[in-house]
C-alpha cells in the first residue's frame, strides 16, 4: 500500500504495556479530530472489539466499524483496516503499529498509515488538500495521538 505517513515516538513502558495501552485502553487517550472524523455524526468512543476489530461507539450505542484486525501480536505488532463512513468499497487504508523495546521500560511505538492513494484527492475525506499536505496533516494528528498515549502512560 502506498501513500503513507509514518510517525514514531518513545513511551515510558514495556512493549507489552504499550500494546495494552494502545488496544485495551485506546478510549482513555484517543482524541477525535474534526478533520478526520470517522462518521459525519458527533464522534464517539473508540475501542477494540475483542481481537477482531476497531470500533467507534456513539452516544446512544450505534457502532461504526473502523476496521478489522489482521495481525494481533501483543507487544510486537498490530495491523488493522481503517475506513471512514464516506469511503466507497474500493477505498481502504491500513494502519500498522509496531512496538520495539529501546531500553529499560522504554518502547518505540511506530504507526504506519498507508493506502491513502485509494482515496481520490477530490474525496471529501481529503478536504481538498494535495496528497502530501493531507498526509502531513494526518501525521500531525497521529503525532498528537501518540503524544496523548505517552502522557497517559506517564
Amino acid at each position: 500500500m502506498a501513500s503513507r505517513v509514518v510517525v514514531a515516538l518513545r513511551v515510558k513502558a514495556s512493549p507489552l504495556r504499550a500494546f495494552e495501552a494502545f488496544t485495551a485502553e485506546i478510549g482513555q487517550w484517543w482524541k477525535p479530530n474534526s478533520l478526520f472524523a470517522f462518521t459525519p455524526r458527533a464522534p464517539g468512543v473508540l475501542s477494540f472489539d475483542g481481537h477482531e476489530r476497531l470500533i467507534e461507539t456513539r452516544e446512544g450505542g450505534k457502532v461504526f466499524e473502523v476496521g478489522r484486525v489482521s495481525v494481533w501480536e501483543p507487544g510486537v505488532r498490530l495491523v488493522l483496516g481503517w475506513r471512514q463512513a464516506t469511503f466507497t468499497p474500493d477505498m481502504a487504508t491500513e494502519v500498522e503499529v509496531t512496538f520495539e523495546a529501546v531500553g529499560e521500560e522504554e518502547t518505540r511505538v511506530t504507526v504506519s498509515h498507508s493506502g491513502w492513494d485509494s482515496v481520490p484527492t477530490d474525496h471529501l475525506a481529503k478536504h481538498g488538500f494535495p496528497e502530501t499536505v493531507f498526509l502531513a496533516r494526518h501525521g500531525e494528528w497521529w503525532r498528537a495521538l501518540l503524544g496523548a498515549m505517552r502522557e497517559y502512560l506517564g
Partner: protein
Amino acid sequence: MASHPALASAVVYKDPKAALKFLEAAFGFELTLLIEDADGNLAHSQMSYGDSIVMIGNEWTEEHRSPTSIGGLMTQTVHIQVPDGQGSVDDHCARARRAGAVIIAEPETQFYGDRTYRCKDPEGHIWTVSQTVEVMTPAEWDAKDMGLKTTVHKG
C-alpha cells in the same frame, strides 16, 4: 523530544530513504515522521536526536541539491553535540565508520575542551561531531596561545 524546535536543518539527498537508514545506523538518529507519495517516494521526513530534529528531503527544486550532484560542494554542515551519558565521541565515530561514514578528521581533543571528529556521509555531506570533555572558560582557551580573543555577548 522536541517535535517542533525553533530551528532545524533540512538536509538534501538524492536518495533520502537510504539516508534515513544511514543516519540511524551511523549516528543513532530516530525517524519520527515520514511521508511517502503514491509511488512510494519520500516527500518529507524528520528524525530526532536528543532534543533536536533534522529534516531529510530530496532534491525537490532545481536549487536543492545533494553534494553528490554538485561536485561534492556544500554551503552548510550540520553539527552533532553528543549529549553527556550517551557514550563518547570515539564510540560515536566507530559506529559511524561501521555504518559507512568516511572519517575525514579522526577524533581529537581540541584546545577549547571538546573532543571532535568530522565525517562524510555516503552523499558527501560533512557532519561535525563533538562532546565537551573538559569544561573551560573563554579566558582559559584564549590563554592557549592560539591567537584568539574571545568575546562573549550576553543576550
